[in-house]
């Protein structure tokens, strides 16, 4: 009696039920295990957003892979993460172009076979032999997207005409309303452009470096804060910041789409291009899969995904990609001027010499620039 009650209470299965469950489990096991076994993890080191579903879900489903991202913020952070990990940890690495050379010198990336990638389809000649991407005739990284940094502003405070020069940051009405993206490189690069250094904005002798420092310090009273991605986004959205130095369309675009009265433009002194490139991690056991993914991201379909990336947009770098974007999302193509003949077409801006690729300081060390940035923040 007691035994019967115990079985009843605990719901012990009958022999028939046990057979039914066991049989079902046995029959479905091959499908379950097959599905799990063939899903391969691809370890990606990238800026936030690159391994999110809006970009990779379609590719992952079609190729039965799963992306395992490790996101970083800034090239230094990326290099540190690789340096602290054993070789082969990351299959695919997205880096800013100026750091590719350092990745290569440190032996963190594999050479690529140039014929595997659509170099002939690149939108601009510079993109085929992008600085730092080649060494000793070998290709090490493939550029997949880019974006331009210039004057980002609130249309209610700054007119389109005023935004045509960095001098708008010094507008008296904007005291305490100019935000900085908290990274020395784009901010000081813009100050260097404002000083008229043009193409040699990163190659400053002592006199020019002193002048850049003076110009930057003169902006301190206008500065309303130093922000990360979220802070820049919030500052512009809630109107606390009426202009931002060090950013571009990659932050204002999502706000603009949301109806905020903000915009980014390339002023007459010139703008800076951030360039993002994919490399295959040294000793990656999944180098073929990584190569396949880079090929996908450079395909028209992949380029459209990149241009539409929810976290922050970037412009297409292949002709096929641009054509596909115009067809698939003409509104975004128009908004980001990715149409031939438009005034601020990113490629036309490069041709006009108004865009300069982001680089690291040539005559000073990164530490010098960083030290000055800390000094500026405390001024």
């Amino acid at each position: 009696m007691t035994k019967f009650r115990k079985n009843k209470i605990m719901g012990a299965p009958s022999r028939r039920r046990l057979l039914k469950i066991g049989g079902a489990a046995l029959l479905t096991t091959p499908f379950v295990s097959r599905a799990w076994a063939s899903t391969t993890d691809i370890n990606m080191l990238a800026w936030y957003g690159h391994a999110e579903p809006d970009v990779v879900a379609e590719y992952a489903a079609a190729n039965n892979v799963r992306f395992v991202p490790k996101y970083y913020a800034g090239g230094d952070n990326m290099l540190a993460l690789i340096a602290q990990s054993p070789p082969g940890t990351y299959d695919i690495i997205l880096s800013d172009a100026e750091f590719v050379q350092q990745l290569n010198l440190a032996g963190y990336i594999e050479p690529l076979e140039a014929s595997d990638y659509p170099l002939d389809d690149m939108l601009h000649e510079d993109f085929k032999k992008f600085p730092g991407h080649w060494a000793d005739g070998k290709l090490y990284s493939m550029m997949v997207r880019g974006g331009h940094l210039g004057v980002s502003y609130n249309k209610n405070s700054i007119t389109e005409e005023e935004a045509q020069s960095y001098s708008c940051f010094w507008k008296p009405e904007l005291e305490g309303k100019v935000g900085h993206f908290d990274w020395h490189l784009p901010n000081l690069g813009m100050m260097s452009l404002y000083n008229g250094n043009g193409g040699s904005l990163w190659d400053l002798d002592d006199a020019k470096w002193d002048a850049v420092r003076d110009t930057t310090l003169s902006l301190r009273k206008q500065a309303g804060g130093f922000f990360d991605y979220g802070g820049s986004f919030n500052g512009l959205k809630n109107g606390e910041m009426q202009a931002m130095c060090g950013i571009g369309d990659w932050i204002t675009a999502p706000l603009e789409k949301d109806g905020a009265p903000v915009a980014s433009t390339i002023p007459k002194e010139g703008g800076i291009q951030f360039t993002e490139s994919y490399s295959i991690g040294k000793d990656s056991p999944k180098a073929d899969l990584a190569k396949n993914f880079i090929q996908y991201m450079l395909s028209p379909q992949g380029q459209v995904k990149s241009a539409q990336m929810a976290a922050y947009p970037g412009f297409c770098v292949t002709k096929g990609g641009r054509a596909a974007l115009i067809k698939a999302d003409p509104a975004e193509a128009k908004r980001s001027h990715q149409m031939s003949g438009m005034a601020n077409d990113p490629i036309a801006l490069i041709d006009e010499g108004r865009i300069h690729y982001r680089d690291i300081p040539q005559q000073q060390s990164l530490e010098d620039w960083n030290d000055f940035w800390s000094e500026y923040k405390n001024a």
Partner: protein
Amino acid sequence: MPINNGQSIKLYALTWRLPIIIWQFFFFVGPVLFMVSMSFFLVKNYRMTEAFEFINWYKMLSRGYFWDSYKYTIFISMVSTVCAMSLAFPAAFTLAFTASETTRRWAIFLLIIPFFTSYLVRTFSWFVILSESGVVNAVLGYIGLGPYTMLNTHFGTLVGYMTLTLPLVVILQTVTMSNIDKTLIEAARNLGCKPFATIWQVIIPLSKTGLIIAAIFCFILSFGDFVAPFYLGGSQETTLPILILDTTKSGQQWPRAAVVAIMMMATLFAIAFTGIALAYRKRKGA
């Protein structure tokens, strides 16, 4: 050989203390020692390498911006402590002396509730309230005032510090004042002591220890807080926690960040020990 009673009590007490001693050794003393040694390491190719060099100490301590950050962090933490202590005192006084036991319990419960939510979330909620298009400015707008800039200012930083520290300071002050022997206050009043004089000459001296402990907590929390000056203060002035972030972000200079952290710890130790010494100092002739 039989163990005498005193020895067995000592052993028993030691057994119970042992886990916390081991814990402190591995998770406090160990990491601190590692941090001190790390401050002498070097960074080569974004990787820390073991060394015994004083360059990090020299680089950080010879920079003007380090001392500017140091002075500002001490200053803003002191302002935060004064604000929190002043704002908390009337509330704690009311709860300790005029509120009923039930009200006091409910009040303490309500003061604990904010800690159920992440501090970061509480900080971000201030954006809605303090921004130029936020709630405060909207209300002020109705009476023809503003808009005032409150975010990305010292005021914003202080609001963040108050979010972090004020509930704790009120609780500590309330508990301290609740334990004062009420008959001493009544005696003072019966002997003709005026209400304000009673506060200054009886209540504050009797709750001195708890008040100082509350102030120390407030100072320590504000001094080490990164969230308020970064998000609500907009990094307008660099505090030491922000400087640590800046130092690690560019160049991965963890050894230099360790120098900043050691300086912070040394400062906090000095302030905490001084505060505790003051709190437990006996009055002359007592």
